[in-house]
């Protein structure tokens, strides 16, 4: 049993080491190699523009259901007016970035791992190298940069739709006035909440990008490996988002304390 735990711990450290090396290589590539703007733009369209629907639907319906549920609970305590503030702060600080991260990891992380994995097992990555093109410059940098650009925007879009939906649901409940709802929402939401949402979005983009690219670049065993890479990319990046969010929340709360 101890040997199994030891083996698992070693393989986890090995995995973290590989991720750290990929991170270092990619950061270096961003400064020493020219940015491929056309590839970057294509990835922004693929990753950012095409993820909008899923992110918007997730944000909108989460905001709506949260407003309804908060109202049902708070109404019994006579705190109807706090619904907007609770939804707003929750969406900015936690649910917006986390749900957007999970949706993007499912949609984009899987696609990145599958695409790079297929290139790996069909020798296309070796072909790139043989043609004098460094795969990190060509494959990893545009994807990671596109995620870094797109994710904060997607988080913003998701939260905005959540607030709109929650406003619609909240102000249509008996006993809640629209003016008071808006006033309370604005009163309890400040720039630190927005900064926290965008910071988390950026951090999750880095996690998704490196985990997915790493899974793709390390794909082995032909079709079986290509099938496994996206699944593992989604599972690992989703877990990484959920776990890191806990620590990130504490750290960011120290820097950007909430409340009035």
């Amino acid at each position: 049993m101890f040997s199994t735990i030891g083996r698992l711990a070693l393989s986890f450290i090995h995995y973290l080491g590989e991720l750290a090396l990929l991170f270092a290589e990619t950061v270096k590539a961003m400064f020493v190699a020219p940015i491929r703007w056309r590839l970057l733009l294509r990835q922004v369209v693929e990753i950012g523009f095409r993820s909008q629907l899923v992110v918007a639907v997730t944000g909108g319906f989460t905001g709506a259901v949260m407003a309804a549920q908060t109202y049902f609970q708070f109404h019994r305590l006579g705190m109807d007016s706090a619904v907007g503030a609770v939804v707003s702060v929750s969406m900015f600080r936690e649910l917006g970035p986390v749900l957007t991260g999970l949706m993007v990891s499912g949609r984009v992380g899987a696609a990145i791992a599958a695409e790079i994995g297929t290139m790996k097992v069909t020798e296309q990555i070796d072909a790139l190298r043989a043609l004098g093109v460094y795969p990190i410059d060509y494959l990893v940098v545009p994807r990671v940069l596109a995620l870094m650009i797109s994710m904060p925007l997607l988080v913003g879009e998701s939260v905005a739709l959540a607030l709109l939906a929650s406003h619609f649901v909240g102000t249509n409940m008996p006993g809640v006035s629209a003016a008071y709802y808006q006033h309370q929402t604005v009163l309890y939401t400040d720039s630190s909440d927005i900064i926290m949402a965008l910071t988390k979005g950026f951090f999750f983009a880095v996690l998704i990008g490196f985990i997915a690219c790493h899974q793709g670049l390390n794909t082995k065993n032909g079709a079986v490996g290509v099938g496994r890479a996206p699944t593992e990319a989604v599972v690992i990046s989703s877990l990484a988002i959920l776990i890191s969010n806990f620590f990130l929340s504490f750290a960011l709360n120290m820097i950007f304390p909430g409340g009035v």
Partner: protein
Amino acid sequence: MIEVRDLHKTLGTEQVLRGVDLRIATGETCVIMGRSGCGKSVLLKHLIGLMQPTRGEVLVEGENIAGLPERKLGEVRKKIGMLFQSGALFDSMNVEENIGFPLKEAGVRDKKEIADRVAEALEMVDLAGEQEKMPENLSGGMRKRVGLARTIVGRPACILYDEPTTGLDPIASDSINHLIRRLQKRLRVTSVVVTHDMKTAYHTADRIAYLHEGRIYFHGLPQEMHESPDPVVRDFIEGRSGDSD
């Protein structure tokens, strides 16, 4: 042009190469032969730095490329082209984009120049006019030809061929063999061909190196190999496994 000295490679627990010494002169066509899994492709990948040796040296025009970081290998790789076993075409690009890719990477921006050089490369591999096709619509033989066109478009000084006829029917194989020979005459490049196909070897080789148990067991002219009395070489040439029914 290329020299390999005391090359060792261990993959996992298996020692694939156990001290390979080989010298390939400029303009020569060297065919590396051996049984499946003996390490031919591993040896070939060391010549372009796609694999790093466990021990030993790989000299390209006198420069040892073993242990060079990936970015520095880019310059060496511009001198050497490689045809992969599967062709390794970029499946998101059509034939023209695949062949034009090395030119764009080398900084050629003139669209007409790229189109002309792609057309010229396609003409050399007998695929003129196929620019618009996607890789998924090409046969195995055509993929290898397009892969070869992509390799020669950058005008390398040396071309490495990894199993150029594997998986092709005899007529397509013969056609590829003639193509390799024709390109050697036309482009005057150094060539290294990895194969276990005797016909390809006799058709294309100036010299043949036979890889056996991780070392170069025989290195000589095709005629010398053909007449070799050595039982290991004879078993390979005549396809004798030693098994009985």
